[in-house]
């Protein structure tokens, strides 16, 4: 429990690391890198301990909560950060007061379960004994899923607004703990990798400072207890990526890329802001994630509001997680240092969108009516992204851009999974993808480190297989995992997503029947396998085409690669299908058991069963992609296709579309931004300068003119003449007055007070 209530220490550590590096980094022997590594290491250890505790906490089920047990979801929620929890607590006290003897049906059920568990093990009820007691009780109820999750929410008062208290805190459950581990692990490896990779960089210390801040922001986001806090974390992640993408800001393309990333995300953020606001009011003026999820889940919020809210949030996901049509910033973000790309693409930033959908899943599940449907906005966007992103990867020369589009495509898989109701599959894919994609990015970094900092695999690489064996083998394993080769991790997670579409004949237990998605995902999987094979060919086979003599990278680069490749290979075992009953008990669906929430704050999603035929099909699709690409590139087969774009107009046309990235960049940068920055802005400025100011000046001139007229005709002739007849001296004085600014001021002041007196008089007479 201590770990759950004090989990804020983990992001706080990274924030402290940022400050320390910023202020003292340059004075340290390793220029601040050591501070970052020590802190992120500590954060990783804490994250692992938290994960261990979470597993124990999940297994320890003293009350024997079933899924229907209302108390489970709220028992460890601080009432001050959730109005639903506060109400439940108040109701509970009242019930206690009334001395509920038999209790409601649910309570009785729990009670009996507990007794059964106790009887089965004949152990006293207690924290230590409960884990032993659990299997018996759970078995009675027919599986682990039946045990309700007990999230731990803690918070403090952030600020008050009138009678409302807005809190800040942490929400610990399987989902956030998973991300804690993934983020800190990838960040740690990226830190280590970077000490070699950006060695001697012009802003080495700043680089590490921002890595720390980036990690801190992501952890802050992941642990968010309310949606307002999520916005804060979300934006901080964005600004860190801005700083890191634009790390080498002396060159304009880099700062352009940074700006593009930030501005595109801002477009999506409009959706985030509006969505959060809509949901805030929908949940009865509460930002609390628990409140929102429970109310959405219970049907307390109107479907329309949930639909609007979820569509708004999808816009945010489109920009953050690089979904069509706001994906355009992501490939450009490759302008940043490669380890940053690994961090952005594997563990932070882009997964934030996926994470948010998963976090607020009841909103989407109910709002988009995911269950029993065959199409919805989320799954459609995901599937389009998965396929069309993969296609773009084929025409890239830059190895990092291939990987960038690959990320776009794989995020599409995750988003589709969420859209079809395969929540666990999405998170599982996020988990496995983090390893092999980080490995691929860092591998690309290692390649470029050897090849004079070029990422152009077509012109500057080739034949590196023998020169850089460690990089090659790790890259190969990660590629195979990404392509979904059995039994590597990517196979398991991708297969779960495909099964989750519920479209394949014979698949049972899915939430709907998403046929289009299955077809598009299979095509995307085929493309994935093929373009990755192309990359392997260009980078590692053939003759070396670059300059100088490449060499294998040092241990600080290769060690992270080996760790990541190993994890990418074996991570699949954490969620083996439940159908594998030949395995010892408790070996299947561990990931689902510990990560997927069960209870009030999570919709009752069903899980697609493992389908051997589909698994075979997906492997076959992957292998055929690899095989065809192998024949095409390695064996020079399909001679007719080589150079087709040069000969065939239709082929050239399609290639052109791909090379121009479907013209989205042109549309955004040239058409939209160009119009706003150019004609529209100029028109606004012209309106100010001419229409408004023209009116103002006209009024001013008229006033001065009439003032002069009054002065000449009334003041000079009538008043002055009548009073003392010193017209000439007064007019001389008056001319001076007119010339000096102060004179005008006095004139106006006199006019002003005269006007006030007259107007006030009129007012009182007319209205009073």
């Amino acid at each position, binding site marked *: 429990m201590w770990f759950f209530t004090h989990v804020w220490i983990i992001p706080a550590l990274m924030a402290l690391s940022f400050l320390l590096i910023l202020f003292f980094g340059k004075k340290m022997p390793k220029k601040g890198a050591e501070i970052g590594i020590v802190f992120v290491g500590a954060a990783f250890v804490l994250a692992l301990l938290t994960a261990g505790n979470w597993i124990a906490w999940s297994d320890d089920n003293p009350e024997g909560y079933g899924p229907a047990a209302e108390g489970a979801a709220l028992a460890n929620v601080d009432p001050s950060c959730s109005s639903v929890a506060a109400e439940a607590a108040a109701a509970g006290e009242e019930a206690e007061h009334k001395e509920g003897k038999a209790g409601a049906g649910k309570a009785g059920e729990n009670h009996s379960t507990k007794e059964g568990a106790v009887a089965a093990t004949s152990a006293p009820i207690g924290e230590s004994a409960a884990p032993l007691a659990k299997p018996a009780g759970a078995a009675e109820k027919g599986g682990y899923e039946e045990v309700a999750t007990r999230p731990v929410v803690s918070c403090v008062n952030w600020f008050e607004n009138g009678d409302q208290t807005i809190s800040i805190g942490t929400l610990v459950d399987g989902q956030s703990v998973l991300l804690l581990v993934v983020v800190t692990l990838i960040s740690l490896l990226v830190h280590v990798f970077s000490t070699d990779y950006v060695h001697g960089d012009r802003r080495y210390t700043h680089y590490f400072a921002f890595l720390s801040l980036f990690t801190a922001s992501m952890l802050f986001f992941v642990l968010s207890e309310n949606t307002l806090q999520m916005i804060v974390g979300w934006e901080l992640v964005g600004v860190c990526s801005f700083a890191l993408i*634009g790390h080498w800001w*002396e060159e304009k393309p880099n700062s352009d890329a940074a700006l593009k990333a930030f501005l595109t995300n801002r477009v999506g953020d409009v959706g985030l802001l509006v969505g959060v606001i809509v949901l805030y009011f929908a949940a009865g003026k509460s930002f609390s994630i628990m409140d929102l999820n429970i109310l959405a889940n219970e049907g307390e919020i109107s479907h329309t509001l949930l639909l609007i809210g979820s569509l708004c949030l999808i816009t945010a996901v489109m920009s953050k997680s690089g979904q069509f049509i706001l994906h355009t910033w992501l490939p450009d973000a490759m302008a940043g240092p490669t380890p940053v790309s690994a961090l952005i693409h594997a563990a932070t930033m882009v997964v934030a969108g996926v994470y948010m959908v998963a976090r607020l899943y009841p909103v989407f599940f109910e709002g988009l009516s995911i269950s029993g449907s065959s199409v919805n906005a989320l799954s459609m966007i995901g599937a389009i992204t998965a396929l069309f992103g993969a296609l773009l990867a084929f025409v890239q020369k830059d190895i990092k851009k291939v990987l960038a589009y690959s990320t776009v495509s794989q995020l599409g898989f995750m988003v589709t999974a969420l859209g079809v109701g395969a929540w666990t599959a999405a998170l599982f894919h996020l988990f496995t993808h983090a390893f092999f994609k980080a490995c691929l990015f860092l591998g690309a970094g290692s390649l470029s480190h050897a090849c004079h900092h070029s990422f152009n695999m077509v012109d500057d690489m080739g034949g590196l297989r023998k020169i850089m064996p460690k990089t090659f083998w790790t890259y190969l394993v990660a590629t195979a995992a990404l392509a979904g080769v059995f039994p590597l991790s990517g196979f398991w997670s991708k297969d779960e997503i495909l099964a989750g579409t519920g479209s394949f004949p014979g698949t049972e237990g899915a939430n709907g029947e998403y046929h289009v998605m299955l077809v598009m995902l299979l095509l995307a999987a085929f493309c994935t396998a093929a373009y990755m094979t192309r990359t392997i060919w260009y980078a590692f086979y053939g003759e070396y085409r670059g300059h100088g003599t490449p060499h294998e990278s040092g241990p600080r680069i290769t060690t992270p690669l080996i760790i990541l490749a190993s994890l990418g290979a074996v991570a699949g075992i954490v969620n083996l299908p439940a159908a594998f009953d030949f395995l010892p008990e408790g070996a299947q669906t561990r990931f689902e058991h510990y990560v997927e929430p069960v209870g009030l704050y999570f919709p009752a999603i069903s899980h697609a069963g493992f389908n051997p035929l589909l698994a075979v099909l997906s492997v076959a699709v992957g292998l055929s992609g690899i095989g065809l690409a192998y024949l095409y590139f390695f064996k020079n087969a399909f001679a007719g296709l080589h150079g087709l774009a040069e000969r065939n107009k239709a082929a050239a046309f399609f290639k052109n579309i791909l090379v121009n990235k479907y013209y989205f960049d042109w549309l955004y940068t040239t058409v939209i931004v160009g119009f706003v920055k150019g004609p529209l802005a100029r028109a606004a*400025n012209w309106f100010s300068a001419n229409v408004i100011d023209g009116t103002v000046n006209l009024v001013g001139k008229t006033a001065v003119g009439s003032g002069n007229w009054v002065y000449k005709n009334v003041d000079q002739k009538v008043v002055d003449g009548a009073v003392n007849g010193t017209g000439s001296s007064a007019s001389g004085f008056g001319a001076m007055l007119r010339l000096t600014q102060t004179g005008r001021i006095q004139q106006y002041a006199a006019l002003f007070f005269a006007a006030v007196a007259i107007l006030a008089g009129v007012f009182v007479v007319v209205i009073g």
Partner: protein
Amino acid sequence: MMNFLNNWGLILTIFLPLAGALVMMAIPKQSEGAIKLVALGAPLAAGVMGILLMLNFDYGDSENLQFMVNKNWIELINSNFILGLDGLSLPLLALTLFIVPLVVIYSWQHVPNPGNPKAFFTLMLVLETAMIGSFLAQDLILFFVFFEVTLLPMYFLIGVWGGEQRRYASIKFFLYTLFGSAFMIVAFVALYFLAKAPSGPALEQLRALGGNYADMQAGDQLRSFGMQALTYSGAAGIAKTTAIVIFGGMFLGFGIKVPMFPFHTWLPDAHTQAPTQGSVILAAVLLKLGTYGFIRIAIPILPVAARAWAPIIGILAVIGIIYGALGCLAQTDMKRLIAFSSVSHMGYTMLGISTLTAFGLNAAVFGMVAHGLITGLLFFIAGSVKERYHTLDIKRLGGLLVSAPKMGWILGIATMASLGLPGLAGFWGEFPAILAAYDPAEGLNVALFRTLMVLAAVGTVLAAGYLLWLYQRTAFGTPSEEFANDSNITDMNKFEWIAWSPILAGIVILGFFPGLIFNVAGPAVEVIARSVGG
């Protein structure tokens, strides 16, 4: 101690700077050291008073005026010298007391051409007295006097120490504001003649004020300029259409000051031509007199009219947000761009106000302080850039992060704060205002305000656009040949550090602890929101 503060706290806070100005008169022009000492000493002394007040302020009772002073003043029109401090005034008082000494420190070596520190600082001290007085005055005539007194020092600061077109800019600034003031004073006078004593519980509150009010009956002529009395009256006895017209007068007076679209055109000129110090004070404090006037005077005194005006204010606010942002995109001068951004940012504040809800008003108060700090800092930086590069033409700048890395960093943070990045102060003025527009006060057109909400949210994209493009063109890249080896371009000096780091700290601290303002202003604005039914 409390006794002393209750009697003298507010008076000293207001008039210590003025006393400094008087002392300054006696110092010969040549002894610059003594002049600067007084120039810094007086605002600091006022600041110490302010700190004492804030330490002794009862935060549990922040909806009520504290440390009140009530003296007879102009008995003929029953206008009294009433001062008071509540949760609404306190953040703005703090802002003023915070900014002015920093401006003086910044001026230590930067007294702009044509020099003459004595006159320069004297004006600044007079200005401070007027600004503090405006935030503390609880009588309309007293408020009006302070409000108008702010004009002259600023007029001279722009007109004498300004840029090339200082005459045009200063005159425009003066006349524009005066034009609005004329309508405002008419509105005040009309209130004096028309407002009557209310009935019901409000009458009890009014009677509790004592004095003339002690035995008033419902329907009696109020004949008062006292803000409290008028607020309790809540425009009782004034027909709705009349109230709407009176509100219109105040709208012009305050709206021009904010400035709201389409009365904003004095602002870019005034800001661009003003010396750095003038721009900072103008942006940080003077603009807030307008928004403060809406919250303190116009809305609580004329609640029914406020509801009628709210949609118009909301629409103009959002036009200001979008329009101001587009204006920024068209600018080629750094300072003018920052000036235009005020139009956009004050739009969020006005949007918050127009919702007439506690959340919206609270966001507006936060927005005022945040904008004061952030835009103040941006103007400081623009001034220092101008001093080094002798130009603010964005096209010619570039590579500030190379030439003056620390200044470039601070510009970066200020930019991020200005575009409303969470974790920095700007966000808390912006997001809650947008949020409040989803659910405006009872009786306001929900569909309209939700449309405004979406448009205001779109405005955040434009804000990020113009600010980041500004940052890209000024700070990123490498310095152009023109400035590459210019020995004049140095990183921050000691005075800049002293003047800017407190602002920077304020921006970050408020970003993470928004409760520092929300919790203080909340109860006060809630009372106002309740009075208009929000």
